Each structure stands twice: as C-alpha cells, then as structure tokens.
C-alpha cells in the first residue's frame, strides 16, 4: 500500500515544448562551457574518468573547472530511475513517485532555527471593560529536540502531510555537531511513521543514521526494499559550484544506494540571472550536473530532481519566497523534471511573513495552489514555515493542512461522463416537475461520499475571527493523540548500537 497523494490530471504548464528544449540546450551549453567549479576532488576525479574536461584553478581553496559533455549527462538521464520509491515505518505511508505521472505528495520542511510559540492573552476594551478579546501573540525562540518531537508528532496526524522533513533545527545545549544527526533522525523517526528525509550535519554520522534506519526497517535488505529514510544534498552552490563537504556526502549516499535529492537553490538576481530564461537554464544545469555525478558514482541511484529556486528581494537581496516569480520558477522546474521523466522535488508555501496572518495566508496559498497544479511529485510545501525559511510555527502547520485539503479537492478529476449526465438529466426533469423545484433531496446521496468539499474547519462564529484559536485547539488535540513509537526492543538496540542519542529520547526509560 502506498499513499495516494494528489493526482493532477491536467498539470498546469507555463512552457511550450520549444521553450523546454531551449532551456535544456542552454543547460547543456552551460555544463560544457563554463562548466562547474568543483571544490571537491572526488567529484572531479569521477567526472574526469568518464570524459569530463578538467582544469586546475588557482585561488585560496583548491578547485577545478569541470566541463561536462552532453553525452555524459544524457547517459546519466538514461540510468536514473524514472520511478522512485520512498518507504516508511508504516508501509501504508510509502510514496511511489513516477517521473511521468504528476502525482503530488505533500511534504513538510525545511529546517528552521526558530520555533514560534503562540499564546492567547486576553485584552479588555478601555471604553467597555465587559468587552474582551483574545489576540494571538507569537514568541520566537531557538528550536529544541523536544520541539522536533512535537512537530513530528503533529505532522504524523496531519492528514495532508505525506512525508516528513524535519521542520526545526535542534539547538539544545547537549546537542553537538557530532550527535545532531543521530538525534534528529531518532526524534523524527520515533514520532512519525511517514517517510523521513533529511540533510546531514556531518558525513561522519552517515553510517550511524543508516544503521539506525536498518534496525527500524528490519535489516539491510529490508531497508533497500523499504527505504524509510532519504537524503537531501545541496551539492551545488549557485552559481555552478560543487561544494566540498556536501558533495562528499552526496557521493557517499549514492554509494549506499539510498534515495537522494539533488537540490539546487539559486536566487534570481544574485546567484542566478534575474531573467527567467537565465535562472532556468542555470538551475537545470546545476541539477543535471548533480544527477550526472550521482549516476557515475552508482548507476541507478534513485534521485529526485530537486529545485528550490527563489527570487531576490529588492529591498534586502534576501530570499523572497513569497514573490510570484518564485512560483513561476518552481512550475518551470516541474516541467523540466517531467521532460526528463524524473520525479521532481519542488517548493511552495514559503512565506516572507514573520508570523501567521493575512500575508502568510495569501503568499502560501497562492504558491501552494499554482505549484501543486503543476504536478511535482515531491512538494516540500513549507508546512508551518514562516519568515522565508527561518521560523516554524506548529499552529501554522495545522492551518496549512486545512488549505491543502481544499487544494486536493480542487485538483480532483471532473466527474462528467455519459452515465453521470443521464442521471442528472433525469434529476433535472424530476425536480422541475415538483412544486418546490429544489434539488436538496439529491444532495444526501453525495453528502457523506466525499464528493462535497467540507466547511473550512476553523470557521468562527458570527462576526468573530476565531481561526487561530480553533487551529490552536486542533493542534492540542493532535498532540494529545498517541503516535506509534519505535518498539521497545528496537529502541533498546538503537540506543545500544548508535552512540550519541540523548537518553531523554528513550520513552521506555523515562522516569527511571
């Protein structure tokens, strides 16, 4: 069994075929001239041994100019799997992604440093003390491992969340660079049975997190069959540079055959051209360079075409995820990935707003709708994320789940066929012949069949806007619902074999 996601029957496309081909050709030209600057020696050696032209560069850091010929890229595109399976602790949560099928899975993430708490203090009207109003107050603080557990817990119960990317960076005093990876993997996997994807803080922990996944999945072979974890690597820094450490991580993940996202996140205006043609040609070249390297490391490595393009804000030159162009780039990338028949890791829903509210709702809903319509297979759609990518608010994640239900409903295939039409024609004749001329009696057969969209779940009463308060209540309900933790025996083995996991995360030893 796998999750159904949202099958987009007629995906929205911005680019006519000739523009797709133009971008592809431009990317090929970029890869051969100027090519990429690599700060990673292994990548240089691998690419060089397969025919890439390499030239050593002078500078503070050792680097090489690598020119990748078109046939190398095309061969990699041949060997990269068109269907990628992302497993899960609960096999019912498996995600099957086919590059040619626009079936959208909704995923959380990415990682933020700040956790936003919410409280509802009561204010009294100065002119009428009998009038009170509750106003949400948001308080930012550094994220902790407990927050990550809570986030994973709530996202387990959010109906629209198909997979989990950790939403918060754990910054407890007892978290170090050495133990961060094992703790973030354990906290997430222990509180969520959906697919878990993450980046690595240090390559040294790769084997530990893979071993942890093997123990949970039931062994090495079981993990191969049911890859409950996968990795995100930003091996290419825009413009066109293989980064040393993340490229190392990428190569090692590929060697282990686990699914991996080749992600690039150029910013139009600063690290990519401001023109759409330019950022598209460049991001496509950057992703293809990564995919080529991955296939050369291990042919058949399951990869996702990862695109996180963004436009620069003109007032700060920071990321403007809320800009309309950012959605345009993401939709273009979904189309490029489909051109190569590769599953697409895409981005939507990131808001420039610092707190939940109207700006946040407008920005995220806009991009969530239009990007989902383009049919990317793995849409990391910023459940709960605010202030670009730096703040996570659990309340916002609960709100996001509600609007994704609306988007899912909207993207359903229309049910218009001959038998449906005959039935409604009969209905129309019947009703017109009645004195009341109402179709209400015909609602009931579809009332509980899922054919009618639901009321917005956080609708207030009368003229009050109770959205935040109602969503907060829902959040508390979800936190109170139990989750299926990793069993006691496996937990014991994980703590025995994997060093560095905080003892307080062992739910079977709490209070002892």
């Amino acid at each position, binding site marked *: 069994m796998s999750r159904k996601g949202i099958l987009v029957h007629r995906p929205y496309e911005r680019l006519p075929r000739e523009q797709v081909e133009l971008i592809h050709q431009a990317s090929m030209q970029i890869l051969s001239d100027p090519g990429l600057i690599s700060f990673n020696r292994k990548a240089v050696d691998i690419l060089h041994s397969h025919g890439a032209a390499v030239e050593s560069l002078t500078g503070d850091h050792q680097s090489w100019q690598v020119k990748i010929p078109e046939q190398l890229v095309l061969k990699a595109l041949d060997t990269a799997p068109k269907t990628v399976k992302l497993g899960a602790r609960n096999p019912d949560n498996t995600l099957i992604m086919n590059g040619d099928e626009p079936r959208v899975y909704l995923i959380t993430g990415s990682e933020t440093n700040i956790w936003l708490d919410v409280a509802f203090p009561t204010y009294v009207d100065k002119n009428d003390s009998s009038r009170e109003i509750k106003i949400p107050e948001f308080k930012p603080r550094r994220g902790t491992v407990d927050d990550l557990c809570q986030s994973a817990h709530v996202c387990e119960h959010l109906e629209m969340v198909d997979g989990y990317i950790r939403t918060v960076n754990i910054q407890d005093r007892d978290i170090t660079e050495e133990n961060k990876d094992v703790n973030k993997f354990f906290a997430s996997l222990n509180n969520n049975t959906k697919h878990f994807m993450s980046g690595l803080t240090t390559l040294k922990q790769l084997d530990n997190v893979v071993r942890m996944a093997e123990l949970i999945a039931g062994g090495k072979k079981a993990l191969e069959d049911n890859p409950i974890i996968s990795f995100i690597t930003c091996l290419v820094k825009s413009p066109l540079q293989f980064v040393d450490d993340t490229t190392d991580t990428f190569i090692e993940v590929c060697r282990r055959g686990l699914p991996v996202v080749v992600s690039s996140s150029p910013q139009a205006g600063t690290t990519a051209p401001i023109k759409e043609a330019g950022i598209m040609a460049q991001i496509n070249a950057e992703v293809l360079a990564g995919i080529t390297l991955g296939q050369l490391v291990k042919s058949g490595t399951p990869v996702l075409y990862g695109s996180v393009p963004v436009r620069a804000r003109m007032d700060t030159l920071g990321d403007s995820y809320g800009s309309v162009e950012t959605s345009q780039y993401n939709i273009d990338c979904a189309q490029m990935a489909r051109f190569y028949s590769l599953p697409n890791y895409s981005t939507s829903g990131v808001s420039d707003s610092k707190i939940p509210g109207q700006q946040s709702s407008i920005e995220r809903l806009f991009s969530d709708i239009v990007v989902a319509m383009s049919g990317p297979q793995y849409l990391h759609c910023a459940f709960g994320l605010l202030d670009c990518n730096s703040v996570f608010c659990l309340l916002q994640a609960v709100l996001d789940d509600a609007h994704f239900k609306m988007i899912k409903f909207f993207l359903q295939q229309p049910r218009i066929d001959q038998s449906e039409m005959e039935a409604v024609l009969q209905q129309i004749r019947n009703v017109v012949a009645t*004195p*009341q*001329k*109402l179709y*209400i*009696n015909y*609602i*009931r*057969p579809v*009332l*509980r069949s899922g054919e009618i969209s639901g009321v917005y779940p956080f609708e207030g009463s009368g003229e009050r806007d109770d959205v935040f308060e109602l969503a907060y209540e829902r959040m508390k309900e979800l936190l109170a619902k139990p989750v299926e933790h990793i069993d006691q025996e496996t937990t014991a083995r994980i703590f025995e074999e994997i060093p560095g996991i905080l003892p307080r995360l062992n739910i079977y030893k709490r209070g002892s």
Partner: protein
Amino acid sequence: MSKDIIAAIKGNVIQGRKTQDDIGVDDSFAGKPGVVELVQQALDENASPQEIITEGLTAGMQVVGEKFSTKEYFIPDMLASAEAVGAAMDILKPVLESANVETKGKFAIATVKGDIHDIGKNIVAILVKGAGYEVHDMGTDVPAEKVVEFLKEEKPGYLGLSALLTTTMIEMGVVIKALEENKLRSSVKVLIGGAAVSEEFAREIGADAYCVDAFAAVKVLDSYQ
C-alpha cells in the same frame, strides 16, 4: 408490536427516509419501509395517532435537531427528516380530525410581491410542516390583496413573509398595513425572514417576529403554542 413500529418510525425520521425507496444516513436501512409505510402500518395496527406523533415523529425530530446542532447532520438531512414527518402528518390529518384532535395550527407563507425568490420560503415550509403545522404555501410574487383574501378564507393563525431583495422587502410593510385595514392583524401572527430583512426592520413595519432562518421560524411558532 406497535411499539416496535413506532420505534422504527422514530428511527426512519432520524434517517430522513420518507418512503422505502429513500436512502438514509445508515446503509442498513436500504429497502426497508420508510416513515410513510410505517405510519400506515401503525394505524392499521390501531396505534394511537398521538403516540405516533409524540414517540415516533417528534422524538425522531428531537434527535435530528440534536445531531444538527452538533454538526453531525446538515440542512439536507434536516429537510429530509422534516419532509418525512410532513408526509406522515398528511396521513394522520384525517385521523386526527375525525378524533377532534387539534393540530399545532395553520401557517401560511408567501414571498412578497415583486420577488420571485423561493428557496428560503420553501425550506421554511418544509421544516414548519415537519414540526407539525398545517402549511399553506401561497407561492412567490404574492400581492397584499391576495394575502388578505387568503387569510379571510383560510384563517391561518400564522403568516410567514419572505423577501430576498432590498427593493421588495418594503412590500412586507404593505402587507401588514393591508391586514390592519382589513381588521385581520390581531388574528394572525406575522413572521418575516429573508436575506434583506432584520430584527430592526421587523419592528419598524410592525411584524411579530424576525426569523433569521427556518429553525428560528419553528422556534418562534412553537413559542406561540
């Protein structure tokens, strides 16, 4: 035996099944007798009409109302149940009349002159009938003279006036004035409703009550009992 039938009537009211052909919320009712068939069966087995009404129909509607207030049921469920009760009341009417049992009263309803909107009016008519009143629907675009004429002939105790438009709501005041001129005002309670009207407007034109929706109309009518 009749106890079982009356329990089944209640159950089918809750399901909103007027006849055996209707669907309910619960699939297990499919193909089984609905309220109409069961009421006839209960009468055939000499159940008292009062018992059918109180323990079957009214008790069922009570549950439906509760389910609606907890958002388990929606308006179409409520209307289906009310229609089932209305159909049962049509069967029971001659029996009640021959036994000299009084009904809850006559309720006439109309959309006023110039306004052809009738969704709200129709929903009110169904729910009020389902609540046990004898409903006379005069239709849409009904002029004041026709209302007066109807009231003189049928003598309903209650009159419902509906208007959707701000341009037609003033016609409600015209009707009330016509009732006063024809010395009918004291014999009928006038309830108004519709998107354009309000509590304040009801007071201005001298209506007895403003009903925000069909449920409010039933509540207001019941308060006059």
